[in-house]
């Protein structure tokens, strides 16, 4: 027993050493939300640290919805989101007297992929994708030749993100027309790497996920172009950022709490840094930057929001 106490005491002493860094005057910025936006914000936070090491930026991954819950209670300064805020989430924020601004920070394309051995599909129309994924397809659309008679009479194996993910919400909204409405008989995983494994090991597989996951696995997968009404377009940095890869490219957002802007000048600093540095950092994490004009627009939007609230304070 005495030994155990000794061990505890020693480890506590060890812990208390090497922790005197944080005694300096520091301010902190709390961020939470989407795990899709997380890599972007993490990259910015990492670089911001060399800019201003006294600011502690912390980032959680509660998901877009979980993040908005905390944001609406005023527990976080900034919320990452892979979809715009919903009405009921907005209401909760209003009830707690939280004013906020929505800023677009990047684009993400959703890639539709098949196995490299699949030599019959080059392009899906949105109608075809809808026919495959809509709720009514469950149990009825089971073979490739049901979508196009020229395609093989083989079972189609579907892979997609789980229902809790913002990617799923976005895909169903863009393709089926209603967010969250999809067939249920497909292999679902919150981990996109599992989907990559699935499609790359199955000749008759078909899946969708973030473009970054395709780019890292180009040798194992084949991307399929999507025809949103104006011809077949393959997703790429170019087509995602100019919007021609429709409807499967989406903006990623961050939301900033107004009282954080009033109480903590570092939040303003951080967001300016975010919008300035995003274009150069996004490539590292596999997302597509907005166009320079769009960034300028977001910066102006943010600037006037900051001015409005700093004036209110005086």
């Amino acid at each position, binding site marked *: 027993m005495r030994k155990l106490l000794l061990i505890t005491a020693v*480890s506590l002493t060890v*812990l208390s050493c090497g922790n005197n860094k944080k005694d300096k005057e520091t301010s902190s910025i709390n961020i939470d939300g989407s*795990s899709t936006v997380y890599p972007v*914000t993490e990259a910015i936070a*990492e670089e911001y*640290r060399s800019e201003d090491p006294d600011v502690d930026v912390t980032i959680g*991954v509660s998901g877009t919805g979980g993040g908005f819950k905390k944001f609406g209670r005023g527990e976080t300064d900034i919320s990452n989101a892979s979809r715009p805020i919903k009405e009921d989430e907005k209401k909760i924020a209003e009830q707690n007297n939280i004013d906020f601004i929505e800023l677009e920070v990047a684009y993400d394309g959703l890639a539709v992929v098949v196995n490299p051995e699949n030599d019959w599909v080059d392009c899906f129309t949105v109608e075809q994708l809808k026919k495959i994924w809509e709720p009514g397809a469950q149990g009825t659309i089971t073979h490739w030749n049901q979508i196009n008679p020229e395609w093989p009479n083989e079972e189609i194996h579907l892979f997609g993100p789980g229902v809790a993910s913002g990617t799923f919400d976005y895909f169903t909204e863009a393709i089926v027309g209603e967010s969250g409405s999809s067939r249920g008989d497909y292999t679902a995983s919150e981990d*996109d790497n599992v989907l990559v494994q699935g499609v790359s090991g199955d000749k008759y597989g078909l899946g969708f996920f973030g473009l970054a*996951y395709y780019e890292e696995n180009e040798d194992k997968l084949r991307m399929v172009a999507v025809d949103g009404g104006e011809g077949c377009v393959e997703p790429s940095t170019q087509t995602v950022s100019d919007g021609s890869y429709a409807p499967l490219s989406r903006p990623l957002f961050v939301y900033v709490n107004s009282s954080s802007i009033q109480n903590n000048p570092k939040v303003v600093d951080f967001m300016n840094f975010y919008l300035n540095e995003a274009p150069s950092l996004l490539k*590292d994490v596999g997302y597509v930057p907005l166009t320079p004009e769009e960034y300028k627009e977001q910066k102006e939007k943010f600037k006037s929001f900051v001015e409005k609230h700093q004036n209110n304070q005086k």
Partner: protein
Amino acid sequence: MNRIKKNRLKDQIFKAWGIFCTLLGIVLLAIFIGSILVDGIQRIDWDFITNLPSRKAERAGIYTALMGSVWILVLTTIIALPVGIGAAIYLEEYANKSKLSSLLEINISNLAGVPSIIYGLLGLEIFVRVIQMGSSVLAGSFTLALLILPIVIVSTREALKAVPKSIRDASYALGASKWQTVSRQLLPASSGGILTGIILALSRAVGETAPLIVIGALAYVPFAPSSPMDEFSVLPIQIFNWISRPQHGFEVNAAAGIIILLLITFVMNGIAVYFRNKWQKKFK
């Protein structure tokens, strides 16, 4: 074939089945550890241990997550130890065999089977919101302490039960009070078993992810906690975060993180085995 031969054959078959069962677990574990080692061992160096999280896989390190895990371990021990041992001593030595105490016993065994995410939700409501600890190391430690408490209680009781009755009788015969018997005879005699139980419970706590994510542990923290009220991340969260990233470099990082986490649990289990052997010899 006569009966003797038949029975011998059955015996052989059962033996083969037994060997298969034994090897199955070990072989699977060996394959797992082998593949993790192949993937991750070359990534482990001092920088990996001391670097902060980063968007670049080759620059990313586990420093803050590792320190978070160490803090959680120490605080969880401090909280769970006295409460768990106290409850076990009461149930084993003081409580009468009444309906109430058997109800308590059943409930404690049941608690050991509650999924960890439920403890996370409990912790979120009680420690984070009602007591307003925030998403701090302390709230995480209290949550994990609750999670391992049933294991600590059950194993402490087993250890107390294993103390030979002669030691108790001898102590009482010399006029010792109950507390004197417990503190001077029973606890030292059973401390090997108690310690083993606690360390095994802690090895479970160090691998928990779900309850900590629920109470709001973070994925990116650029500093090691310096007080129990600081925010934190832990190794399993860092590993989980890395494994879901698209870039392959992060998979290697995750493998390396898993090696470190396994190392921690192996060392803890090693300590448990060592103490058990030592104390067992002493009290035979």
